[in-house]
């Protein structure tokens, strides 16, 4: 299997007149955790949303350049965006479980794909919940409302929901920013577990978090990719002055 999942070439993104991303070139490797860091408004979330074309939903959003997923440009006209999103899952900043049962939340994605067999679904739900380290906590109320879970549980449910689709990549947009430290820790442990099987791209505000969980780190500033290297390098010997300023806390 090819080792590079995403190849981004000269990606520019505009909201109407405003340019949010400038000529991004980047490669993302399989089964690695890539952290995207940078100050607020630097374009890291926008960049993340380019990878599963969630920016399509924003009016007036224009994109030039290439985003190749498994060697195919996802912005080609003929590209099946629905298929892309099943292969590239996403977890959002705020836990956003659907107002239905835990079971239905997880079965939602597979059902949308047309899977109806109860046994298959049961299996998927159990597997996903186990992978998301949630099964033990919720197994006795799996038919209960997802809204009754705690924030951390909800976020893990959202991860389980994404896993249920058996994606290759999971995009995480500041998944722990709305959670307390204990819940955050659990998610981080989970991410460490998951990277064996999945490629994870995570946007985070916390440099400690990036340092703890990621293999690669990319630093964004004002819509420009300043530096992209292994996490160790970025945090110990950054090549760029701006990166150094940022990680040493001189701004941002």
């Amino acid at each position, binding site marked *: 299997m090819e080792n590079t999942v995403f190849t981004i070439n000269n990606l520019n993104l505009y909201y109407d007149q405003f340019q949010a991303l400038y000529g991004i070139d980047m490669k993302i490797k399989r089964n690695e955790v890539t952290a995207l860091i940078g100050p607020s408004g630097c374009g890291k979330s926008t960049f993340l949303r380019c990878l599963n074309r969630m920016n399509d*939903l924003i009016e007036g959003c224009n994109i030039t350049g290439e985003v190749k997923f498994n060697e195919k440009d996802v912005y080609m006209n003929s590209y099946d965006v629905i*298929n892309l*999103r099943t292969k590239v899952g*996403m977890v959002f900043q705020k836990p956003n479980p659907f*107002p239905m049962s835990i079971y239905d939340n997880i079965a*939602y994605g597979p059902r*949308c794909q047309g899977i109806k067999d109860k046994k298959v679904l049961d299996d998927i739900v159990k597997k996903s919940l186990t992978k998301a380290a949630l099964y033990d906590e919720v197994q006795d109320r799996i038919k209960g409302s997802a809204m009754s879970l705690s924030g951390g549980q909800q976020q893990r449910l*959202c991860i389980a929901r994404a896993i249920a689709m058996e994606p290759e990549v999971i995009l995480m947009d500041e998944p722990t920013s709305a959670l307390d430290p204990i819940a955050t820790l659990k998610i981080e442990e989970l991410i460490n577990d998951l990277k064996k099987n999945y490629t994870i791209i995570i946007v985070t505000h916390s440099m400690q978090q990036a340092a703890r969980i990621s293999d690669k780190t990319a630093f964004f500033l004002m819509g420009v990719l300043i530096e992209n290297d292994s996490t160790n390098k970025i945090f110990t010997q950054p090549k760029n002055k701006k990166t150094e300023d940022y990680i040493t806390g001189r701004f941002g």
Partner: protein
Amino acid sequence: MELLKKNPFRDKFNSKKEAIDYFVRTFFMISAIISSSFIIIIVVFIAKEGIKPFITDNNGIGSVNLFSFITGKVWLEGTAFLSNLYGVGFIIINTLYISFFALLISMPIGVLTALFIAKIAPKKIAEFLRTVVELLAAIPSIVYGLFGSGIILVFVYNFAKIFGIQSKGGNSVLATVLVLALMILPTITALSEVAIRSVRSEIEHGSLALGATKTQTNFKIVLLSAKSGIFTAAILGVGRALGEATAVSLVAGNARSGPSFGFFETTSTLTSTMLQGLKETVGIDYDIRFSVGLVLMVVILLTNLMLNFAKKRVGNINVK
């Protein structure tokens, strides 16, 4: 919201802000009490008039038997002003039957139209449709009645003919259902649209990110998340259907016995019965119409309770 709770009954306020808070809250509470007290005034007023036929001897005619009134299959056995043999059992069933079908037609059309306006249509078309719906909400019910007797009756009459049925000039359950469905459509659409529009976009994005199509998201997630508001729309819609009189009396045929289940039979509703001749009658024949009003209030109350119960169930427990 628990954060906001504070004890209002303190001996003195710690600051001016708290004092203002206290007074504003009291003022708002008074508003709420005023709003809710009207139902008491109405119930007392209707009950006072409506109970009369059952507890007085109605100037020698004799008191109306409550049980046979509630279960009766004929509106009035005998001569008005001289008989006490009133019955509304069949009218209650007719009313519920008609309202159910009106809702059955209106809900899907209204909700889907609301979905179209809120999520699918381009902005300009959405704005246009919204205005159309608001306009229709303002058309007096008598004009709907006019439309009903001018267009829907003809349509139902010819429609029945296709099946070889000779309907009563179109005056029928079907015509009434159609007119009511039309009348509650704007209400349902407008309120559902508000509910759908206020579904958080994160939830929608969550669904899209899972590889659901836009349509799947709209049907499985958006409608589901808006269900509380949609139920509210249904409750208001049913309320209007149950309470509508003028238009109904123009197309129902005002059957005096029943119940009528056939789609081409004439029928009658509680309101149309109540309104019929209200201004022309005196004595028991006048008072009994308030008893009908009382029955109507009870029916509406029970329907509301049922729908609210359903709404709570739907709101709490998993639904597919």
